[in-house]
Structures are given as C-alpha cells and as structure tokens.
C-alpha cells in the first residue's frame, strides 16, 4: 500500500527506531502537533465502544474532503489518533473508506497489543471509516 506523504514520513521515522519505549515517546511528540478533541466535546454519541480506554472522535467534510478530531484518556490511543489524522485528514472520504489500518503495524506501534474486540485502535479506525462512509452517502 502506498500512503499519503505525511504518513509515509511518519512511518519512515518510526521504523528507524528500534526500542519500543522510544517509539512511544516519539508518538507523544507527534501527537502534540495534531488537533485534539477536548474533553468538553466528549459525549455518548461520539464515544467509541469496545475500548479499554475512553475514546471519542468527531468527523466532518470540508469542501468535500474528510477531517477528524479525536480524544482519548489513554495517551497511546491519543497518539494513534493523531497518526490516524495524518492518514485521513484532507482526503476524499472514499479514500478514507478504502484505507488499510496496517500503517500502525508498519510504524512498529503494535496496534495489535489489544487485539480483537478490545482493540482500541481498530475500533477507532473502524468508527472513522463508518463516519466517512455515512458522510459520503449523506453528501
């Protein structure tokens, strides 16, 4: 899969780091750059189910392009949301729907650490794609 430039850059930077602790630290730095969904906007309707952590996401279209903001109480989930923003923001919703979540694995971030239904990242990613799909259909 070829990724958007900003994401590919992130993947390359992360892939260079061997130690998982360092990768997490780097993740938090990247996360700081990305617009977060503040607690105040968290509510039941934007909550992502099936995570160990509290996680919320809001999405919208702007000039036909997709944008998300996300917030979570776990820092790593927050970081993964930031990376997801890199992957999806400013793209046509159709491309968001077709995106594979494997970029997180390529970054060595082991999204799979909480696999299956309690996999916060995968639940979040699926929610983002669902939103993209319904925004697309609504448009």
């Amino acid at each position, binding site marked *: 899969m070829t990724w958007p430039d900003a994401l590919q850059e992130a993947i390359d930077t992360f892939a260079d780091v061997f130690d998982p602790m360092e990768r997490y630290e780097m993740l938090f730095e990247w996360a700081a750059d990305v617009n977060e969904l503040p607690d105040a906007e968290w509510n039941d309707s934007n909550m992502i189910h099936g995570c160990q952590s509290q996680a919320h996401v809001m999405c919208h279209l702007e000039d036909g392009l997709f944008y998300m903001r996300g917030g979570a109480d776990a820092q790593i989930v927050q970081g993964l949301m930031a990376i997801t923003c890199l992957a999806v923001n400013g793209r046509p919703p159709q491309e968001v729907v077709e995106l594979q979540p494997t970029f997180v694995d390529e970054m060595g971030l082991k999204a*799979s*650490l909480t*696999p*299956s*239904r309690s996999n916060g990242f995968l639940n979040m990613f699926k929610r983002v794609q669902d939103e993209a799909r319904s925004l697309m259909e609504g448009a």
Partner: protein
Amino acid sequence: MSLDIESIRADFPILSRKVAGGKDLVYLDNAATTQKPQVVIDAMTRYYEQSNANVHRAVHTLAAEATEQYEAARDTLASWFGTTRDNLIFTSGTTEAINLVAWGWARSNLGAGDAVVITEMEHHADIVPWQLLAEEKGIEIRVVPIDTDQDTLDMEIFSASLSGAKLVCVVHTSNVLGVANPVADIISQSHAAGAKVLIDAAQAAPHERIDFEGMGADFVAISGHKMCGPTGIGCLLATTGCIEEMEPFMSGGDMIETVTMEKSTFASGPQKFEAGTPKIAEAIGFAAAADYLSKLDMEAVHRHIRGLATYTANELKSVHGITVYGDHSVADGSGVVSFLHDTIHAEDLARFMDAGGFAMRTGHHCAQPLLDAYGVTSTNRVSFYLYNTQQEASAFVEHLRYIVDKFGG
C-alpha cells in the same frame, strides 16, 4: 491429482507404532477419532512453548500473539467451512455444538407443542438433548425411521413429518452405516415447511469440505478430533439470524458486555456463547488440521476412502457367516463398514483382530436406535481415513478370513 498415501502416512507419527507383540498398527477406527499429523501436534507445542497467554483481555505481547493466533484459527476454520468468523462458535465438539443449539436456540425459540424432527439414524448426541428438552418444554419429537432394506431414511415419512415442524435435526453421514443423507433435499423441504435445520456433520466434515453457506443449513455441528484435529474442540456453524435468536448457554467471563450485581448484558456474535478461558491451543491445533487438509485434494481423499470401504464391504460379503450393514455401492457416504459374524461374538472378533494389529470398533457406536432398527445390539465396524492403504484393507480381510476359518465353525 492423485494422493501420495506413503507421504501422507509419513506425516502421522503414530502410524509407525507396533502393537500386539511387534505387529504393524493398522488403525481402522477413524470414525471414532482420527490420528493427528505432526503439523497439528507441532502447532500446539509451538503455541505452548512460545506464545501461551490468556486471550482477548490483556495488553502485552504474549497475550497479543495468543489472541491473534486464536482468532486467526477462527478465520482459517470459518473459511475452510465456507463461512465467516461471525458464524463460527467454538465448542468442545459436536456434542456440545448440538447441546448449544438445544439449550441456546431451541429452548428459547420453541415451546409446548412445537415439533422437532429427528431420525432413527442419529447418534445419541443428536437424540438425547432433544429428549431432555422435550421433557422440559413439552416439545413433540417426531422420528423419521430408516428403511432397513434400502439403508436410507424413509424420505416419504420425512416429508410427511414436516408439517408444523420448527426444527429438523439430521445426521449428514451415518457413523454406523456410512450412508450420506440427501442433505440438500432435506434442507430445502424443511425450509419450505418453515423449519430450521441442524446438520450433524461429525462424520461428513472429515471427508468432504463442508460449504456452510452453499449448503444452506441453519446450524452445522463439527468435531475437530475426527478430522485430524485435537481432542476437546469443535464448532457450531450458525447463520447470523439464528445467532441473534440465541440466548446465552454457558455464562461467565468473555461472553459479557457489562456485569453488575443487578444485571448483566452480553457480547454479540459467537463470543456470547464462548464463556470462560477458551480452548486456545485446541483452536490453533484444529486450524492446523484444516490447513493440513487444505493442501490435499479432498475429492481424491474422498474417492480413496470410499474405494477402500467399497472393496472391504464387498470382500466381507463373500466371507462365510458375515453380514454387512449399509449399502457401499453408492458414490457418497463415508469410509465406514459395519458387519457381524453369525457365530463369532463381536467382542471376540475385535480381540482376535486386535491380536493381528487391527484396530476396529465394536459396540453400539452411540446409535442404539439405529441398531435396534436392524435388530442387533452391536456391530463390528471398520472405518477408513486418508492414511489407510489398499494393502491394509487387504490384510484386514485376510486376517478376518483366517479368524472366521478358525473360530467360525
């Protein structure tokens, strides 16, 4: 593609065993359980030696690997059985799968006066749960008899018994006679009558690919240990609609959404019926068995097994005093040959054969009503699988002739 039986045999470590004072083991009790190829044993060993952890709930590397392997096993098996992961519930075997339908679906969807159709050809696992449910809920059980001249279900009575039936439970392939029932016809007639269908595929799944979606049954029950997999695992395949209609059976961890002291809510999908720590190594071993079979031409396997059974049935018929049960000339069916000698007791015969290295089964095969229909209380039964050879079948017949000559006077 033809089968290379010698190379298949080399995959099964137990087949080089000696028994009865140095004789080669000739294992002909495959309908009871099959042997396991090295790859299945190794898959479980590897899991225990490298990735063992409890699944689904933890945030650490081993737990992630274990969960991935366990859930990948579900994917592998679902695709081998022609369905998707959301339609495969792990059970400990066919017996638990049928009990799950009885307790989880029928118990909450059927009521007094509703009819369940079963047949005289069923294994006890597909009789007793319905009897217990009938007792509790006032359900009517209708039994389709065997036509013992044709060795098939009496399909006229079957059709007649469908009116108002809510569930039809039929064994795909008999473990005593080896005959395969007309499953497609049974399903379409049942559905036309508004009944759901449960197929007991314990004996079918080892021999042919079960295509759940193509078959169109509502429930299919399968055991891993009869198809090269480990003991203690099997599955229930069920349509999404039926899974949604099911109430929890066993309950506890892993099948809940939330628990408070007042009330609990449940997970959806297969998970709802998989309470407690799963059979993790077993699921991985079962998937390794499906992977193993997937590398073979299953139609060639089926032809091979049928060939051995047909040969053996024909030879046995020519042995003085032997009666063979079931019709082995038909193309489908499994590799089972049941027979009796008219003077040598079945148990003696089995011991004499064992003394020659031949493992065959004796008894009622958990199908007493079927045997009752034939007026016997037990049979000797040989059942073939993919690693059996023509030479083994010939040697079996030869040793049996010798026994009959000696003791059958």
